[in-house]
C-alpha cells in the first residue's frame, strides 16, 4: 500500500475540498467504471459515483491505512451502485424496470468481477494513448487489424506490431490477476 494513499485518505476524511478533488482525480474514472459495470446506464452511474464518494467520505475514518485505497473505493462503489439500482427500481416500479432494462434486473457483478473491471480499467488507463486506442478499436469497436490500419492510415504490419506491444504491456500490468492478486477486495467497507 502506498503511504500516499494513507495520507490522501486522512485528508479525505478531514473533508478538505482539495483532497476530495484529489481522490476523485485519482479514482473517479475507476469508480465510475465500476458503477457503470453494475448499472449499465451513464446517468445512474453518475449518481452512483457521487453517492460512492459521499459514502466513502462518511466512512473514511474507518479506512485501514495499511490497505490500498482503490479496492476499498471499489467495494463502496459497487454497493452504492446497487443502492442506486434499488432506489431507481422503487421509484420507477419494479415490473416496468425489468421489462425495459433486463440487464439491471439480473444479479449485480460479484466483488471479484468488480475487482477485475477495476484492475483492467486501471491497466488500460495506464497505457500510452495510442496503444489504448488500438486496444479499444480492436476489442470494443470490434475492428480487425486491416480495418484499424485503414482507419488510422498506417500499414497493417505497423498495426500488428503496435497491437502486440500494447497487449504485451497489458499482460504485464495484469499479471497479478493470474496470481490471485493481493489487492482483491475480500472485505466489505465500513459505513
Amino acid at each position, binding site marked *: 500500500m502506498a503511504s500516499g494513499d494513507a495520507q490522501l485518505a486522512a485528508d479525505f476524511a478531514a473533508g478538505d475540498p482539495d483532497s476530495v478533488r484529489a481522490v476523485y482525480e485519482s479514482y473517479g474514472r475507476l469508480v465510475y467504471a465500476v458503477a457503470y459495470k453494475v448499472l449499465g446506464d451513464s446517468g445512474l452511474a453518475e*449518481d452512483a459515483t457521487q453517492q460512492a464518494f459521499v459514502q466513502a467520505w462518511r466512512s473514511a475514518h474507518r479506512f485501514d491505512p495499511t490497505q490500498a485505497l482503490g479496492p476499498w473505493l471499489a467495494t463502496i462503489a459497487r454497493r452504492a451502485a446497487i443502492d442506486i439500482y434499488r432506489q431507481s427500481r422503487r421509484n420507477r416500479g419494479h415490473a416496468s424496470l425489468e421489462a425495459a432494462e433486463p440487464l439491471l434486473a439480473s444479479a449485480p457483478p460479484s466483488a471479484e468481477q468488480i475487482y*477485475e*473491471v477495476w484492475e483492467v*480499467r486501471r491497466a488500460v488507463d495506464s497505457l500510452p494513448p495510442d496503444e489504448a486506442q488500438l486496444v479499444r478499436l480492436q476489442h470494443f469497436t470490434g475492428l480487425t487489424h486491416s480495418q484499424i490500419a485503414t482507419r488510422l492510415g498506417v500499414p497493417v504490419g505497423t498495426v500488428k506490431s503496435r497491437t502486440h506491444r500494447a497487449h504485451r504491456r497489458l499482460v504485464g500490468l495484469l499479471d497479478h490477476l493470474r496470481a490471485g492478486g493481493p489487492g482483491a477486495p475480500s472485505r466489505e467497507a465500513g459505513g
Partner: protein
Amino acid sequence: MTDDQRAAYLAGDDAAAHEPVALPASDVAALDDLRGLLADHALWAEPPAELGERVVAAVAAARENPATGPTPLHAVRRASHRRWIMLSAAAAVIIALALGVFFGTRTTSNPEKFAATLAATELQPNASGDVTLTKSTSGWRIELHADGLPRRDNGRYYEAWLKSADGVLVPVGTFNDGRDVTLWSAVSPADFTTFTITRQVVGAGEDSSGQVVLAGTTKRA
C-alpha cells in the same frame, strides 16, 4: 506460456492467428475472460467532465449536514424556519413523486431540468447571470454563473434562495464569488419558482437580508 504468447493470443484478430501458439486451457479461459472485459462498455465509459465538481459539492454538502446527506440546507437555522423548510420539502417531494407516477416516463439518464436568466436589481445594476437546475437522486444540482458581482469576504457573503408562490423561502447555499458556483436544493424549482441572490453578513441573522442583487423565475428547460 510466456507473456509474449499471451499477448499474441490477445492481439490476434482472427482464429488463424491463435493456431501457432499452444495454449493451456486455463490460460485460454483467462485470456478469453480478459477479451470479454476489454469489449465491455464499462471499461471505456468516461464520466462527464463536470462530475468531479459535483462530487466535491456533494461531499461539502454532506459535511455541512452529515445527518441527512448532501443537502444545501444550513446546519444552523431557527427551529420554526427549519420546520417550514422541512414541511415545504416534504410537500415538494410528495408532489414530485405524484407527478412522477402520473407521467411515469422520465429516466435518470435524461434528468429533469429547469433554468432561469437572472436580472440585476438597483443594488447591483451591472450584475447578470443564469442558473440551471438539474434533478438527481441527491436533490437538485444548481449551476450558477453570475457576472458583475464583486467578491464578498471577511464575514460578507452571498446567499442563494428559492421562493414559492406563497412566499416560503428556502436557502440553497452561500458563496463568495458567483462566477462558477454549484449549489444544491432539496425543494423542486417547479414549486419554488423564484431564484434570488442576496447580500448577507455573518452575525446579522439567518434570514434573508432582503438585499436582492439578482433574481429570476425558473422555467422547465
